[in-house]
Structure formats: C-alpha cells, structure tokens
C-alpha cells in the first residue's frame, strides 16, 4: 500500500514539475517524465516480483508447462513496455516514434510466441 502511495505521489509530483518547468525549458518535461518512469518502475519491481512468484506457483500447481507459461508472461511484459515507450514518445510529440515503438513491441511479442505458434502448427498438422 505504501509503495503504491509513493508511486502515485512521485508521478503526480513529476507531472506538476514538468508542467511548471515546461514554460521555461520545454524539453525538461520529457526528461522529468523519463526520470519519474524509471523511479516508479524500480519501485514496482518488488510487488511485481511477488505477483510473478504467486502466478508461477499457481501455474506449477495446475501443471502448466513452462513452454506455455513463459512465452505468455514475456508477451505481457513486452506489451507493457512497448505501451509505456509509445506513450512517452507521444508525450514528446513524436507520433512516428510512438508507432515504431508499438510495432517493435508487436514484433517482439510475435518472436516470443513463435515456439507456441510452431507447437500449435504441429498439433493441427497431426490432427488433420
């Protein structure tokens, strides 16, 4: 609970600072956003780690194989990171870079899902 309050407070503070400093140094807004994202991301690592451990425990209990579980987790992580990068680019007014960041995320997710796709293809080939 404290972590979430801290992250929320840091983000709000960063937004206010960026808004204030943007009048004098327009580029400072982007730098402040990047810094706050890095700090908040670092603060989120511990809770995310606990959630990940719990999810892994549940997956192990249900008998889900790692070859199914890990690509899925990686895809979720790639989606989060690419979304974050794209939004930062949009905040800086760079829509083209934002689109490229999202494309990169999609390509990364596809690459990570390739083993799953191959396994499904072999399964369907065997059935038909």
């Amino acid at each position, binding site marked *: 609970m404290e972590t979430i309050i801290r992250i929320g407070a840091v983000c709000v503070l960063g937004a206010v600072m960026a808004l204030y400093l943007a009048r004098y140094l327009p580029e400072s807004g982007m730098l402040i956003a990047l810094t706050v994202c890095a700090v908040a991301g670092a603060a989120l690592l511990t809770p995310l780690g606990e959630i990940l451990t719990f*999810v892994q425990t*549940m*997956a192990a209990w*249900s*008998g*889900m*194989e790692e*070859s*199914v*579980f890990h*690509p*899925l*987790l990686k*895809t*979720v992580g*790639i*989606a*989060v990171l*690419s*979304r974050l990068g*794209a939004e930062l680019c949009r905040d800086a007014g760079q829509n083209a870079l934002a689109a490229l960041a*999202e494309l990169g*995320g*999609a390509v990364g*997710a*596809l690459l*990570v*899902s390739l083993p*799953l*796709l191959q*396994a*499904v293809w072999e*399964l*369907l080939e065997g*059935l*038909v």
Partner: protein
Amino acid sequence: MKGLCGAVCAVLLVISAVVTAWGEEGVPAELFEALTPEAEAQMEQITSDAAPQNILLNGLSYIRQYLLENVFSAFRGQLAAAVMILAVVILCGISAQLCPGEQSAGTVTLAGALAITLLAVGGVRSMLGTGRETIDALDVFSKALLPTLAAATASSGGLISAGVQQVATVMFADFLMTLIRQVLMPVVCVYIAVAVAEALLPQHPIKRLRGGIGKAVTWALTVMLVLFTGYLTVSGSVAASSDALTLRLTRTAIGTAVPVVGGIISEATESVLAGAGLLKNSIGVFGMLGVLLICLTPFMHLAVQYLTFKLTAFFASLAGSEPLVELIDALGTAFALVLGMAGSCAVLLLISVSSTVSAVRL
C-alpha cells in the same frame, strides 16, 4: 401314416424345446465376445444378477448407478485443464487492463490463444481417439448383432422383415460409420483449426466458416438418422403386413394340404414361432444393452469434457477477451460434434433393434 404323424410331431416338439430353451438361456456367446472388454464385464454382471425378464431394467439401473458413481470423478479429472485455461484468460485480461491499446491487446490475445490451444491439445487428442474407438466398437458389435437378430427375426416368422430391416440397418450403419471416419472426423479437425485461426485473427470474417462447418456436420448426421428412421417406418409396416399374410396363408395351406394332422401341425407352429420370438426379444434386449454399455464410459467422458469447456468459457467471459472466450467455446462445441457422431451411430443401432423387438406379429 401314424408313424409319419408321430415323427412330425416329435420334430416340432424338439425344435420348439430347443428354441424356447435357447431363448431362456440367453444369447449366443459370439455376441458377448463382440463387446468391448469393459462392456463384456458389465454385461456379465447385469445378466448374472437378474432374471431374464428383468435384464433390461437391471441394465438401465446399472447404467444409472455407474453414472452417479463416476461422473464427479470424471469432472475432477478435467479440473486441472479448466484451471490452466482460466489462468491464461485471466492473465490476458489483466494485461489488457494494464495496456488498453489495441495493438498490445492483439499481441497478448494471440499468445493467449496459442497457449489455450496447447493446453487443450491433450483433451482434443483423447476426444478424437475416444470417438474413433467407440465407432469402431459399435461397428464390430453391429456386425455380430445384426445377422444374429436377422436370423432370430426370420425364425420367428418375420422373413421379409428380417431381410428388409436388417439389410437397411447394415447398409445405413456402414455408410454412416464410413462417412464419419473418412469425412466428418477430419472436418472436426478443420473446425478446430478454423477456431484457432479465428482467435488469432479476430477481425477476419472466418467466424462464418466455423459456424458453417458445425452446421454441416449436424445436418449430415440428422439427415442420415431421419432417412433411416423414415425408411424403417415405411418398410417395417409393409414387411410386417407381408409377414403376417405369409404366415396366415402358410398355416391355411398346411392345414388344408396335409390330411388328418394338418390342423395339429398348423397349431404347433404357433408355439415354435413363439419360442423363436422369445429368442428374438432376448437378442434384441441384449443388443440394446450392449450398445448402451459400449457407449457408456466414452460418452460420459466426452460429455464431461464438453461441459467443462462450456463452463470454462462461461467463467472466462466474465474476465477475458471475446476471441479467447469464443476459442474455448468452439473447443467445447468440437467435443459435442464428436459426441454427436458416436451418438448417431448408437441411435441408429438402437432404433433398428428396438423396432425389431417391438414389432408385433399379427
């Protein structure tokens, strides 16, 4: 003349006694051997416990008891697969909340659909294997049952009925089972492939293809059963009337043509035919029970898997994205299609046997 009359009466009495005794003892051993090992053990348990006239009731009671004892353990066996699939759906739902963009949601849904397909592969393979084995077992049993039933029907006075009904059943059963093995089973595999493709490409209008495939399989099975039932109804009534007329004419001819003992012989044939009718009914009841027992365990497992996937789709719809929910629902429908195929083979045999048993000799 007296010697001839005595010999004829003795022969008729012996035939009557043998047929009646055979009917009382039960069915030929070949029919037991044509059952699957599990069904054979269950049939022996049913027939050993009950009097001959109570075998059908005893059998239905056994089936009810078996279902009550085993259906919950079958559900527990499917629980792990359902939990895994729900876990994937929930994970994808959480990530959709974290990254509400369309592109992010698309990639996560893609990975989720692939994961769900891989998690369901064990169930899909066992579903297809179970369906094929059940149809093969029904095929083997029908090849033993139908000729035996035809012989019993003919010996009970239904010569034309035996020829018409049993030939029709053999023809329809053979065609239906070949159609299922060669065409409909591969079509179900295509159905599953299309369902996976639909989940990977949610905006693509491939959904109609999947719906069309499902309807085509259902229609094919329904048309076969309707045609068979219609043919049996029409041909059965005509054949029964012909048999009754033939019997009446034969009795009249015997009574008129054979001097002195013609009337006695004509009356004696009544008891012979009654004994043969008893045998026909015993074989018919055995046949119906045999079909039900062959289908009992496979149908229970297929129905449980079908219900599990449908329930999983229902719970997934509360938390997950539509493509994943529809994929899970489609996998459940695939189980229903295989269940329907095996069920139609069983129903075809049951209709044929029950129409033979319930035919009343005029």
